[in-house]
């Protein structure tokens, strides 16, 4: 069925797969079966047990091994080792157990490949690969899945949109005070338990921590709190545990309550003390605790005989888990304390965070959740099934083959839906032309409003260049002066200059960055350059917590008046580019999971999910339409929606998909399906 010509194009192709996870396994198998012979895979992860439900190239015995290596071994064994058969020549699979951001994976590396196939699960890496593919002029096939949803998109420099032509929503963040003082949702309690309490007790003690910051005076209590969280000499662990419990769930709440302003329009929390919830002797009654041997998996649930992670525990049970998990950390894992970070696969950590979050929730009148649910929220777990990954992998290979054939008119973005839209479960859409105002693939300037006297260069580098612009190894210049750069072979004196520059206010730099100047930022590895027009502004409001506002220039549509003139009082009616606010205005320092349900409330059917961009009026459809019966405007909306959903990623500072969230997404489309868990 595949022509000779095509077969030889496939056989001669050099393919790079980035990511060897759920999609990766399916993809490797399908590529091998389809006749590809030279496949390179980069993946940083090792294999976990929860991968085994869909990453079928791995076995129990592989758990702990590098994914890239394990999948090669099994795949070769399964599929490729076949010198005997004429039409199955040897396949070469080269694994790299590494981070895609490493400098060896530079533009020259990427240039070697005929096509790059992404099977990643985080936005950062995707953006990075996108830029390298653009710089290397190599076609990129992107993909993602969540539960039953999935998508495959094709990106060719100059011909289609790049992956970043439409900004993906940034992770949802919460105001610090919501987390520390006025939680109203369970996720707020999880963030508190995970990022503050867990961190304080078991993580790096020297790190700044917002725990105990209340609306009232913080400085006194923070000194006091240092003492509180340290275990005293000769203090029994159990007593320590109760003391912590009483401090965070009892005393701190009382302190918060004393500030009447906060609670004027809010439900008051109630302080909870351990003695009220648990009798004094209770901790001694758990006969099981002594039976826990050193070789057992350390778990408070085991020790308390709580078997079912799907059950919602009572306040008393949560309290017991809190105390027991804390005790077990100190007793069995004392060496790790001070260095621990939360890991969703660390059973004891999950138990602790679940319990702590639940007690706090109880205090604030928020419904409690099971460990299973809490783990999903705290761990940003993306739910996944093998079948969807298989479908997406098939679609990726189909697109990859089109790329090799240079079948330009037939590239498709394909969306795998859970509920059919006009009979379609798999919906192909023609790719769009590049967005002319994309700062990544089209040359576009940005504008940064900042207080040039107050903000330091460090703020710009960390919050704008690294975080927002996704540049990992940036170079910042003003005119011909390099203000800052990162590199391996810099001279010592320059390094000192750059270090000093970071701490200076913008207007006080050797080459002052003031209103009207243009900062050039570049990432040499990504071969991405961007011009940022600086505009001084004195004050920023609460929402602009960073004290900076990054926006970009967009061509105004013909029928609109220029909305916001820039700075110097030019008349609104003159044709000025309108500013469009970039996604993801960060309120806060603490980043955590997203609750897309908030974004979706009040949305009508078929309206796109992005906050700022509605119908992409700038976009022009590439080529003519072949798919007559698919209405393209609906598809656009669907496409935007899908790409927003699908780029939800796994990882610490990322969006998540809760089952309930998926439900809300469907509801917004008028689809009604409930998954009860």
């Amino acid at each position, binding site marked *: *069925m*595949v022509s000779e010509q095509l077969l030889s194009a496939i056989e001669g192709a050099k393919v790079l797969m980035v990511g060897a996870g759920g999609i990766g396994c*399916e993809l490797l*198998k*399908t590529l*091998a*079966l*389809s006749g590809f012979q030279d496949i390179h895979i980069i993946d940083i992860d090792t294999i976990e*047990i929860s991968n*085994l*439900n*869909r990453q*079928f190239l791995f*076995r129990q015995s592989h758990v702990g091994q590098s994914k890239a290596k394990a999948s090669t071994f099994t795949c070769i064994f*399964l*599929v490729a*080792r*076949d010198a*005997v*058969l*004429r039409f*199955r020549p040897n396949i070469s699979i080269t694994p790299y157990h590494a981070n895609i951001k490493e400098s060896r994976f530079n533009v020259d590396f990427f240039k070697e490949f005929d096509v790059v196939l992404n099977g990643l699960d985080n936005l950062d890496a995707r953006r990075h690969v996108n830029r390298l593919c653009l710089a290397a002029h190599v076609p990129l096939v992107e993909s993602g899945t969540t*539960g*039953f949803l999935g998508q495959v998109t094709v990106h060719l420099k100059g011909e289609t949109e790049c992956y970043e032509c439409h900004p993906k929503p940034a992770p949802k963040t919460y105001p610090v005070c919501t987390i520390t003082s006025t939680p109203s949702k369970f996720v707020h309690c999880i963030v508190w338990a995970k990022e503050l309490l867990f961190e304080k007790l078991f993580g790096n003690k020297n790190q700044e921590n917002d725990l105990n910051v209340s609306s009232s005076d913080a400085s006194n209590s923070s000194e006091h709190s240092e003492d509180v969280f340290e275990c005293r000499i000769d203090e029994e662990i159990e007593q320590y545990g109760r003391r912590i419990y009483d401090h965070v769930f009892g005393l701190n709440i009382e302190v918060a309550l004393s500030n009447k302003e906060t609670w004027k329009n809010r439900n008051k929390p109630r302080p909870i003390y351990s003695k009220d919830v648990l009798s004094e002797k209770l901790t001694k009654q758990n006969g099981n605790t002594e039976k826990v041997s050193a070789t057992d998996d350390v778990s408070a649930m085991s020790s308390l005989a709580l*078997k079912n992670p799907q059950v919602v525990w009572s306040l008393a049970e949560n309290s017991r888990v809190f105390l027991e998990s804390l005790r077990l950390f100190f007793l069995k894992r004392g060496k790790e304390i001070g260095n621990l970070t939360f890991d969703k696969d660390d059973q004891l950590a999950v138990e602790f965070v679940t319990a702590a979050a639940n007690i706090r929730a109880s205090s604030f009148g928020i419904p409690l959740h099971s460990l299973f649910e809490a783990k999903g929220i705290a761990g940003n*777990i993306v*739910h*996944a*099934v*093998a*079948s*969807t*990954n*298989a*479908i997406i*992998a*098939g679609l990726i*290979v*189909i697109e990859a*083959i089109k790329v090799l054939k240079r079948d330009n008119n037939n590239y498709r973005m*394909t969306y795998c839906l*859970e509920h*059919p839209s006009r*009979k*379609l*479960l*798999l*919906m*192909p859409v023609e790719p769009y032309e590049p967005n002319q105002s994309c700062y990544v693939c089209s040359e576009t300037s940005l504008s940064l409003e900042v207080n040039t006297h107050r903000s330091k260069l460090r703020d710009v580098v960390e919050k704008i260049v690294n975080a927002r612009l996704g540049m990992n190894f940036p170079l910042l210049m003003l005119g011909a002066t390099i203000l800052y750069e990162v590199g391996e072979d810099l001279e010592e004196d320059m390094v000192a200059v750059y270090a000093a520059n970071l701490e200076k206010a913008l207007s006080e730099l050797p080459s002052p960055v003031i209103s009207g100047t243009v900062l050039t930022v570049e990432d040499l590895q990504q071969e991405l350059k961007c011009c940022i027009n600086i505009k001084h502004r004195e004050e920023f409001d609460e929402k602009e917590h960073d004290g900076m506002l990054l926006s970009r220039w967009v061509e105004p549509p013909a029928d609109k008046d220029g909305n916001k003139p820039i700075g110097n009082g030019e008349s609104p009616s003159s044709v000025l580019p309108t500013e469009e606010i970039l996604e993801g205005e960060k309120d806060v320092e603490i980043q955590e999971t997203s609750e897309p349900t908030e974004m979706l409330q009040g949305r009508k059917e078929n309206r796109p999910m992005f906050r700022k961009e509605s119908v992409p009026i700038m976009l022009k459809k590439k080529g003519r339409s072949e*798919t007559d*019966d*698919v209405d393209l405007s609906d598809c656009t909306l669907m496409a935007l929606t899908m790409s927003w959903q699908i780029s939800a990623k796994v990882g610490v500072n990322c969006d998540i998909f809760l*089952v309930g969230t998926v439900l809300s997404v469907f*509801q917004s489309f008028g689809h*009604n*399906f*409930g*998954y*009860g*868990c």
Partner: protein
Amino acid sequence: MNGEELTEQETALYDRQIRVWGADAQRRLSKSHILVYGMKGTVAEFCKNIVLAGVGSVTLMDDHAVTDSALSANFLILPDENLSHGKTLAEACCDSLKEFNPMVHVSVEKGDISTFGVEFFEKFDAVVISCCSLAKKKLINQKCRKLPKRISFYTVDCRGSCGEIFVDLKNYKYSKKKLEETIECQLEYPSFEDAIAAPWKALPKRVSKLYFGMRVIEQFEDIEGRNAGQTSIADLPGVLKLRKELCETNSVNESQVPDALLERLLIGTSEFPPVCAVIGGILGQEVIKAISGKGDPLKNFFFFDAMDGKGLIEDISKPRHS
């Protein structure tokens, strides 16, 4: 799995998918028994998906010997001659499938499925058949329907870059949540025979041409006494002639079944691995939905054509007599 609760092992292994369909659904899956007939590439994909999903058991049927061509799209069959020598396709696949999930019971059944009585099918919750002639499809479908127990019945066929799935859930009742309420749904499915008996003229205008294409080829194989998939481009004149007849009988224009499509279907006797993955994935989802009772099942045909990339559902049934 004994008892009503999922074991710790199951909870850990199935964590990600439990977050999709819930623990209840997972339990139901783990008690289900699936019969699979015809071990080609697409079916191999399907088996992988349901085994990973954690069904109770999978029974494989395919007495063909392992051949080179069978290996081309079926990743369950190890290329190593020593391992597959003397085995049937089903036996070769069985070993691999077991590895994907030791908690699933995978076995082989031998014999001519057409001769098995109705009681053979009773132990299954879902029956999936592939590489079957028209006559065989109808026969097995009827046997499944005869039982008082509801058996989910599926046929799946891939030809080159095209694939077709047929679904028959008889009278299927399920519930779903709409906002805060739970609504009861009921779907009535026609048998394969009844579905394809629907006059072409009565079907909606935009029905996928692939539906008609598959029916023509199917009829051709039936008339010529061929095995399923036993066609080649040399058959084109005969097929075009048959198309003409069928279109006339059904009073539809021949353009409903384009030449080019028929050619592709005739040539495409081997499977295209990416299409196997897509069809096997869709089928996997459908079976999971039907067993777990969660999710709107598709009714009643699914078509995929890699050429235009569309995967669409067609509801094809005889118009009711009022």
